[in-house]
């Protein structure tokens, strides 16, 4: 029997996990290229493509004009003719500029063409508030895209997820949107050096618990873990689940948890009304109604554009305290 020395746990920030994944994906497949605004020479305003131009050259790391429709369409035309593009849309808010390409073209071409097309396209973008960038650079619009058949949507909650989900997205033969949260780009965690995938459509139980389930996306996963620690004092043993992929959604893992804990809350940074949490809550009550001891709660941003002033923005942002408070409020309503 041979013993293998355990590798030192390497911790790197979220932003470096993305850059590392891009490099490894481009090394393994010459058909992978990245196009977007300031992704080449500048290495992206978030630093997620830093170093790639030097290694792969301007043909594969492509600075584009500020033309989101043009860039997104370029990705589609390239994907439909044999390449595996990654299209970087700097801020998720800018997705509104290229909605036709994403919603009417990329998502539907396979179906409209009777299955003959294959669109291995990754749309990579940054969502989230908390940086005083105001209403047009701070939104979390993932629910829009989960509503469109033909698209897959992932939302990494940390560095390990960022790399593994990006690898799975690029290797997938469908259009996949990777929605990162800009306020956790500096978050550090263990990330294996070798290339690896996190399977799409599979949720992760982040923190096991026995009597309450919190289902959270993106940055709200770490906030929910904090909330779970706060709620220990209330006698709660909270299970935190990260769906990782929002579309397709892993209903099974979530329902199993709720059948065990009998109470659930969903949390996301996006505006609560019409958010993806509403869909998750509806699925929980459909599949686990008889097991529920309380209404399924929801935490999200209030129904307002994202404000600029730090004071207002703090008021706007969901966080661990707000999640814990909502859990306590729900338990007050318990049957």
């Amino acid at each position, binding site marked *: 029997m041979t013993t293998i020395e355990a590798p030192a746990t390497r911790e790197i920030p979220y932003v470096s996990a993305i850059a590392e994944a891009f490099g490894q994906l481009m090394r*393994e*497949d010459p058909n992978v*290229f990245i196009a977007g605004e300031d992704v080449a020479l500048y290495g992206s305003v978030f630093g997620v493509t830093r170093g790639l131009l030097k290694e792969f050259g301007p*043909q594969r790391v492509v600075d*584009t*004009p500020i*033309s989101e*429709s*043009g*860039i*997104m*369409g*370029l*990705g*589609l*035309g*390239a*994907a*439909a*003719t*044999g*390449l*595996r*593009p990654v299209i970087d849309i700097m801020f998720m808010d800018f997705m509104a500029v290229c909605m*036709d*390409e994403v919603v*009417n*073209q990329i998502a539907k*071409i*396979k*179906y*409209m*063409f*009777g*299955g*003959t*097309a*294959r*669109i*291995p396209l990754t749309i990579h973008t940054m969502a989230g508030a908390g940086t005083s960038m105001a209403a047009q650079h701070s939104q979390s619009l993932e629910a829009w895209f989960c509503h469109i*058949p*033909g698209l*897959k949507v992932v939302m990494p909650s940390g560095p390990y997820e960022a790399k593994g989900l990006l690898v799975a997205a690029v*290797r*997938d*033969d*469908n259009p996949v949107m990777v929605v990162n949260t800009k306020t956790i780009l500096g978050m550090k965690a263990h990330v294996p050096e070798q290339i690896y995938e996190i399977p799409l459509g599979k949720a992760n139980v982040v923190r096991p618990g026995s009597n309450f389930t919190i289902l959270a996306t993106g940055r709200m996963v770490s906030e929910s873990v904090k909330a779970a620690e706060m709620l220990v004092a209330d006698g709660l043993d909270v299970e935190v689940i990260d769906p990782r992929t929002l579309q397709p959604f892993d209903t099974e893992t979530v329902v199993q948890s709720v059948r065990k804990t009998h109470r659930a809350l969903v949390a996301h940074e996006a505006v609560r009304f019409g958010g993806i949490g509403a869909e998750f809550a509806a699925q929980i009550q459909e599949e686990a109604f008889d097991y529920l001891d309380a209404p399924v709660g929801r935490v999200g941003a209030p129904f307002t554009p994202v404000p600029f002033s730090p004071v207002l923005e703090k008021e706007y942002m969901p966080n661990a305290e707000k999640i814990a408070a909502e859990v306590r409020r729900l338990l007050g309503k318990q049957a």
Partner: protein
Amino acid sequence: MDISNGVLLDLHRRMVRIRTFEEEAGKLMEAGKIPGALHLYVGEEAVAAGVMVHLRDSDQITSTHRGHGHLVAKGGDLRKMYAELYGRATGYCKGKGGSMHISDLDLGMLGANGIVGAGPPIAIGAAFSNKYRGTDNVTVCFFGDGASNEGTFHEAANMAALYKLPVVFACENNGFGEFTRQERHQAVHDIADRAAGYGMPGIVVDGMDALAVYEAAGEAIARARAGSGPTLLEFKTYRFFDHVGIRGMGVIYREDAEVLQWRERDPVGLVETRLAEQGILSPEAAAAVHEAALADVRDAIAFAEASPFPEPGALMEDIYTVSRGVA
């Protein structure tokens, strides 16, 4: 540009096939046999034919909502086309796309499109791919005068010139954006003028004259193939039928006299006169081409009508790809 007799006859044949395909389809739609809306290409045949004779199967095109003519000219299978118009399982898109999404990726036909102006960004992506993969394939982007007002055209034109992509922008200016006359939807008279704003050549071409189209398209496609960048060609043409169908929706937006005036320069008639004058195509031979086209179209219609509708279970198929490109 020297044109061989073979090419001239090929041009004529493609135009006649489009004309016949569209006339019969229009009748079937208005008789209620084909569901939905058909945007017919009659009057504009010289453009599709004059461009497509230069293209190989590996060259791509992006099309428009008025897309049947493009696919017929690129060598599309008439049976699969009619079956698609009829919504049958044997159609190009298994009945899931219909007229506005008819496509044949094996022939480089990247789809008709229901969104005006959707083609240009897709076309530059295909052209980018051609260059990236080291091929000398060319992409031709068909779009109309209406689409030349969409931001997508301008973004794509800029990027095509910037990256020197092997693409040709083929504007079919039929004088109307749906029912709105060109002078009421844009202040320029020649859309080709817009090319200057992007640093590419822009050329106005008589879109009713198949030989003029052939010549201009040949130069632009050769330029793209040689790696010298994009060209904007503006083909002045006219829609003989209505925006939708033959008689259309009863919207009064042009005088019959205007239609008749354009019909005097019917592209099919023009090319037949020219070929007859040159002793290449006798009236009898021309009639035989029409008869053969009609026989093919009737065969396609019979095939479509005898074909099954999709099974209800097909509703949830073809939304996602299950295969994997990389292990």
